[in-house]
């Protein structure tokens, strides 16, 4: 029966579509687990500035530029050791060396960059190197961005934090400094981007023979990768990719656990009857009174928010659900069929009858509800995440939605942040539902012609 049913699937276009989407998600999951192994994913997702420092904050995905007239800039990142970067060092006095690093880049986007950062790394014994950072614009104008002595091992200069520049460029308090630096006319009402070749010159003065200075320049763009970044500059790609295996595993395990256990319990209850059946019935009724989601929330707050604990709790709470009642009704019919009587007559044990004769009989009717159960568990996990009870370490789709909601993605217009994980969830859910509905029609002949 099962084999013929699988053969029949090809007559249902929605089943094929659903199955294809599910297989694509499975392929993505396998690809993700291989290319970004679990510890690596956690390291990246939990990492701070040291991992994501060079990414723009809240950058939209790069493909938004296909739909925009005004193209948004991508991030430009250069190291002082890169081949295209000019670096000159000369001694001008006994204990004074001058080291100039010039970063040259083309700026062609129609919008201003998000920020400009120069990270300085210095080694010295007593006297720290002194550095001036100068921006050379395409129109030849030179602007001194700032002077600083590199006292720490690593020092970051950010244009957005250099308030002195605001006065220098005569900007209002609500105008961005970076826009003033990259504008044709900073005094204009509507500032326009000055396109062309820009240079950032890092003029270092070193006071020791052994002292060294290296630097990194980043012009933060406003688009990043195919997924964009979040408020912590993290690449959303990691969360979107890792969300797939987590959602699939979670949904499948929860649906399988719930279906198999409730089927077994219903079979045992029906077969043994009497007080066993009575107890199972009573538990089911009590379970109906219990508020499931609040209990999960309480478990999440007080015991653990890890996905494994949640999975166990969800399965435990849904075993004695409505499905036990439908299964019981079917088993009651199965129990009175002649082949069960025959099995009893030749002396089959109780367990043999339950597990080898009764349960296999109803598997076809259970498969559709199993498939249909998967999206509901996937969405349950997302619900918990949206309530702030997502797994503390794993990146999931629901957690991205939660991050986006909590950090006001919608109010600030970062729609991609909310829509990407939502669409992923939606597509997964609909794919399983399409497959499930078709299977329902295949396995329940009464629905077939409808």
């Amino acid at each position, binding site marked *: 029966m099962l084999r013929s049913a699988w053969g029949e699937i090809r007559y249902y276009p*929605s089943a094929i579509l*659903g199955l294809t989407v599910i297989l694509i998600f499975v392929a993505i999951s396998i690809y993700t687990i291989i290319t970004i192994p679990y510890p690596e994913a956690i390291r990246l997702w939990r990492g701070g500035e040291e991992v994501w420092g060079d990414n723009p904050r809240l950058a939209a995905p790069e493909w938004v530029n296909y739909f925009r007239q005004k193209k948004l800039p991508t991030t430009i990142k250069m190291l002082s050791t890169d081949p295209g970067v000019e670096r000159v060092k000369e001694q001008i006095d006994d204990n004074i060396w001058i080291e100039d690093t010039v970063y040259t880049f083309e700026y062609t986007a129609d919008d201003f960059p998000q920020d400009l950062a120069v990270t300085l790394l210095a080694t010295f014994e007593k006297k720290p190197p002194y550095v001036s950072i100068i921006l050379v614009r395409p129109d030849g104008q030179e602007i001194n961005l700032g002077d600083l002595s590199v006292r720490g091992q690593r020092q970051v200069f950010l244009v957005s934090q250099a308030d002195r520049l605001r006065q220098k460029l005569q900007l209002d308090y609500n105008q961005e400094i970076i826009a003033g630096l990259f504008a044709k006319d900073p005094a204009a009402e509507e500032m326009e981007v000055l396109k062309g070749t820009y240079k950032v010159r890092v003029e270092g003065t070193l006071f020791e023979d052994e002292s060294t200075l290296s630097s990194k320049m980043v012009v933060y763009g406003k688009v990043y990768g195919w997924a964009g970044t979040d408020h912590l500059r993290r690449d959303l790609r990691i969360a979107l990719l890792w969300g797939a295996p987590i959602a699939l595993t979670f949904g499948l395990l929860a649906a399988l656990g719930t279906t198999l256990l409730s089927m077994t319990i219903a079979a045992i209850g029906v077969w043994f009857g009497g007080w066993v059946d009575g107890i199972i*019935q*009573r538990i089911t*009724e*009590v*379970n*109906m*009174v*219990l*508020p499931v*989601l*609040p*209990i999960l*929330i*309480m478990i999440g*707050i*007080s*015991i653990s928010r890890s996905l494994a604990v949640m999975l166990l709790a969800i399965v435990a709470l849904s075993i004695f659900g*409505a499905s036990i*009642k439908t299964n*019981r*009704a079917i088993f009651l019919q199965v129990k009175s069929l002649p082949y069960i009587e025959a099995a009893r007559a030749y002396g089959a044990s109780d367990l043999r009858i339950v597990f080898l004769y009764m349960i296999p009989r109803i598997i076809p009717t259970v498969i559709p509800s199993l498939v*249909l159960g998967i*999206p*509901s568990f996937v*969405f349950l996990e*997302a*619900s918990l995440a*949206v*309530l702030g009870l997502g797994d503390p370490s794993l990146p999931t789709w629901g957690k991205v*939605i939660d991050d986006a*909601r909590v950090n006001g993605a*919608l*109010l600030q*217009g970062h*729609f991609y942040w*909310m*829509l990407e994980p*939502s669409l992923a*969830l*939606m597509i997964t*859910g*609909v794919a*399983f*539902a*399409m497959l*499930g*509905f078709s299977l329902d029609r295949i396995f329940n002949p*009464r*629905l077939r012609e*409808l």
Partner: protein
Amino acid sequence: MAEQAIPAAPVTPEERAQGGVPTWKRVLRYTVVRMVMLFFTVIVGVYLTILIANMGGQVDEIRRAFIREMVGNMLANNPTFRALPPEERQKRMEAEILRWEKRYGLDQPFLVRSFRFLKDAMTLRLGRAENMTSDSGSRRVRLIILERLPPTLFLFGTSALMVFALSLFISLFLSRNYGHWLDRMFVSLSPLSSAPGWFYGLFLITIFAAWLKVLPFGGMISTPPPETPWEYTLSLLKHLILPISAQVLSSLFIGVYSWRTFFLIYSSEDYVEIAKAKGLPSRTIERRYILRPTLPTIITSFALTLIGVWTGQIIFETIFDWPGLGRTFYQATLVYDTAVIVGITVLYAYLLAITVFLLDIIYAIVDPRVDVGGPRTST
């Protein structure tokens, strides 16, 4: 319980006669047994909730720590206390802590108190909230619940009734026009219902509130509340559009699909064919031969819908910032306010039990196939 909807095995008159008990006695016995059973179910369910809400007594530890800190702070600000010698201070503090613990009932073991909680809950003496207050400032759980109930009933009542009525009418229309393009459309759109209402809420908020900026993000009324009743109603309606659309989007398609299939199965019964052959008008067939036998199922579904209305939906209300019971429940779990959690659960459990009980009786009235308390009826 609900499985009574599946027609019990028909009972022959002989079997009935064998019972030898008058019908009214059987009905009475059945009713009493059922009531006792349901009451017991509610007790167990509520007790489990009390245990879980207190985390088997762990919340007491949180309360103890809280009292210790509070007493410590209180005494530290007291000059006469600070003037005392250290041993004396320690003694005073312990005494004060004991006094407070007694006040909170913490001097008794949790197990004893849990049964007292149960008794209070079952008699609907809902007590006082520990941390939460109603908007009017009261700490009484009853007032908190009564204050939050109307918004929940209003929102979910409206949307549930809308979904119920719409899906019933559309599905009747579709089952009459089997194979119509609308029929195909609803069938192929039914997988959309795999996403819950709050999820559609997010989409709708993104489109209509964040992007088009035509409707509010959430809440029930604009701030500050409009003065005139007319404007008030208008503002309320404006805040209702998105939540109701989200609910309808998520539950309409599956509702229509399942009702339609259900009606189609019933309209392929032999007696419907005969009625058609007799030349009865299709309206009469629908009313007499399709709706009549499906009435019990329709009633169950309606009753369960109504129960759902009472609890509201935690996430849905959180997403839409709707000041209802679901959001209150969530806030209560966040601050371990067990009194509020148990109060809402008790209310829900009672309502569920009463509905199930009434359903049992209504079934017996509308569906003659259900034989109340007959020898073969086993639950």
